[in-house]
């Protein structure tokens, strides 16, 4: 396979991070470390006394058996956690509520780099989806539960339009141009609750909202007194007072669900070239919602790109400026999977009286109310998923491959629904209940035969008309499919999806064999 098809990508993949790639590329055998010490130390001893990082692991993950007693491979991956979790003065979390339980967060608070070196400082360091795709691998599996808690709460503080920021930018300059971070965030909360000691306590942790209303300017935690002086209008003050109070995390979660269930059309704040050089005006008009017949989350339009496949064209010469390569509007398959898993999780908590809300409500144009319990919502997705997403020969004129799951449902560009991409395995891991096991097995075979490589998965089926496997962001040709790296997610291998593929195989083996 052509080496150029591999790219070191934005750090969704940290647990399969730089260490792994680097070793592979240098054909550096993992076995070198089995005897305890590698060649690097032999050399270093001749010249200097350099610390062997594997020695340090024994001390640093001292309370965490999975890493401490794990193989050298596990330990090498755990070092991704040491690489990517760091304190950055220019990319801090928003200040958390003073009422957050102990141990209290340090200031500045450690954050996850979305990838070294391009996404390591300033507004480019902290991405909502990257953070929560990687949170489990970097912070939960490695036992760094408090840092995980701060990050979950820090992003919760920024919730606006029912969404978690795409770019955090310290909270006060967050951009809300992604539709998926909210679901990765919720799914991370699920992982935290299931895996951290006393994980359920996080649901009652206090969140100091930066944007208590959709239109609010960023608020500092505990600014009520200032507001009292500044705001002469008593009503406005009272509203601010109410909103300024710390909220438990479960209220923030419920607000996100309620806004999605109600549906929201919004225009991104400060829309224009100052926040996005290339997006056309229509792209700043965003929407989110839930399909009333299926319960699937949907959103976006064909002029924006609200999922991890977020390449916005920028070449005037090639004519792709302002054209997102992969808008993935409609219901993107991994969002529906993460959504179903999160709803099922919250329903179970609610049934055990550990989550205070059992349902969501939508108010129609004429004031009519629709109430769905969380259970009904999750059931509705389950009933509708396989028959709407599995592609059989009769599905549509746009079918390119059968025996796969669609990449989206209801996209503006109808053929995009039918493209074979590396996203459906995410849903298989998150919500295996949605899948007919035999269909799922067939689809995984297709993924294995068409997408899987030794280090990751292709982002698009090579038989697709728009497949271009070689990514070059400096390409300044007049070929709109590749100019300025437009094909970022049109074939190039991304490695974070490989654990997902491994995971979905493991899940399904038991289902199919039984």
């Amino acid at each position, binding site marked *: 396979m052509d080496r150029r098809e591999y790219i070191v990508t934005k750090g969704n993949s940290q647990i399969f991070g730089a260490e792994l790639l680097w070793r592979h590329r240098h054909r550096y055998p993992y076995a070198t470390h089995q*005897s305890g*010490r590698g*060649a690097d130390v032999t*050399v270093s001893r001749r010249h200097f006394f350099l610390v062997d990082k594997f020695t340090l692991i024994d001390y*640093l993950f001292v309370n965490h058996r999975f890493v401490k007693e794990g193989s050298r491979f596990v330990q090498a991956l755990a070092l991704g956690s*040491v690489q990517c979790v760091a304190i950055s003065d*220019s990319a801090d979390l928003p200040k958390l509520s003073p009422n957050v339980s102990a141990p209290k967060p340090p200031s500045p608070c450690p954050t996850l780099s979305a990838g070294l*070196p391009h996404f390591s400082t300033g507004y480019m360091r902290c991405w909502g989806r990257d953070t929560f795709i990687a949170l489990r691998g970097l912070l939960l599996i490695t036992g*760094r539960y408090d840092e995980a808690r701060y990050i979950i709460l820090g992003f919760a503080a920024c919730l606006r339009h029912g969404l978690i920021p795409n770019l955090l930018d310290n909270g006060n300059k967050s951009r809300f141009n992604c539709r998926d971070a909210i679901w990765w965030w919720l799914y991370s909360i699920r992982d935290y609750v299931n895996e951290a000691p006393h994980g359920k306590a996080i649901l009652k942790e206090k969140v100091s909202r930066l944007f208590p209303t959709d239109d609010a300017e960023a608020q500092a935690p505990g600014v009520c007194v200032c507001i009292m002086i500044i705001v002469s209008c008593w009503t406005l003050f009272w509203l601010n007072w109410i909103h300024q109070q710390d909220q438990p995390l479960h209220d923030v979660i419920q607000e996100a669900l309620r806004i999605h269930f109600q549906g929201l059309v919004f225009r991104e704040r400060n829309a224009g070239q100052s926040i996005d050089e290339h997006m056309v005006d229509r792209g700043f008009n965003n929407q989110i919602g839930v399909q009333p017949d299926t319960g699937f989350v949907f959103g976006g339009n064909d002029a924006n790109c609200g999922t991890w496949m977020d390449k916005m064209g920028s070449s005037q010469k090639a004519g792709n400026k302002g054209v997102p390569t992969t808008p993935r509007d409609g219901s993107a398959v991994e969002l529906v999977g993460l959504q179903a898993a999160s709803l099922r999780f919250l329903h179970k908590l609610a049934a055990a009286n550990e989550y205070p809300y059992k349902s969501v409500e939508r108010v129609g144009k004429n004031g009519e109310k629709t109430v769905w319990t969380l259970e009904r919502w999750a059931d509705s997705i389950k009933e509708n998923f396989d028959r709407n997403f599995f592609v059989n020969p009769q599905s549509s004129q746009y079918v390119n491959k059968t025996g796969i799951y669609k990449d989206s449902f209801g996209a503006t560009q109808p053929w995009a629904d039918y493209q074979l991409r590396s996203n459906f395995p995410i849903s298989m891991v998150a919500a295996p209940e949605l899948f007919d096991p035999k269909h799922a097995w067939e689809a995984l075979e297709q993924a294995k035969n068409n997408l899987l490589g030794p280090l990751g998965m292709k982002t698009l089926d090579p038989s697709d008309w728009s497949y271009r496997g070689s990514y070059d962001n400096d390409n300044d040709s007049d070929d709109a499919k590749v100019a300025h790296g437009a094909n970022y997610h049109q074939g190039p291998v991304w490695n974070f999806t490989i654990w997902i593929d491994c995971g979905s195989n493991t899940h399904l083996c038991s289902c199919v064999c039984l």
Partner: protein
Amino acid sequence: MINEAGPKYDELKTIASKLNLLDLNRALYRCDQEERDMGKGSGAFDIPQFGPLVYCGTQGFVSLLTEIAPNNDLGHPFCGNLRDGNWMIGKEHQRLSQIMTL
């Protein structure tokens, strides 16, 4: 092979037992931008005739040595830099000294 006994190793154990993972991030890693972001007037170590290292911490050197060592490439610019003086160790000493917890 390094000897896992003796005073040097005991010293290492003492130092390592005081580190947390964020200290280790600074000791082993941090790319050029992260280092500059700290505002202490320092970036990645730049080897003449070669270029800047990927990491400012010791991993930056270790990665390079892993390529140099198997070939015993003593003509590598990094080896030249080591022969030219204590630039590398001086720089590392300076940056690690800025981390209070170390």
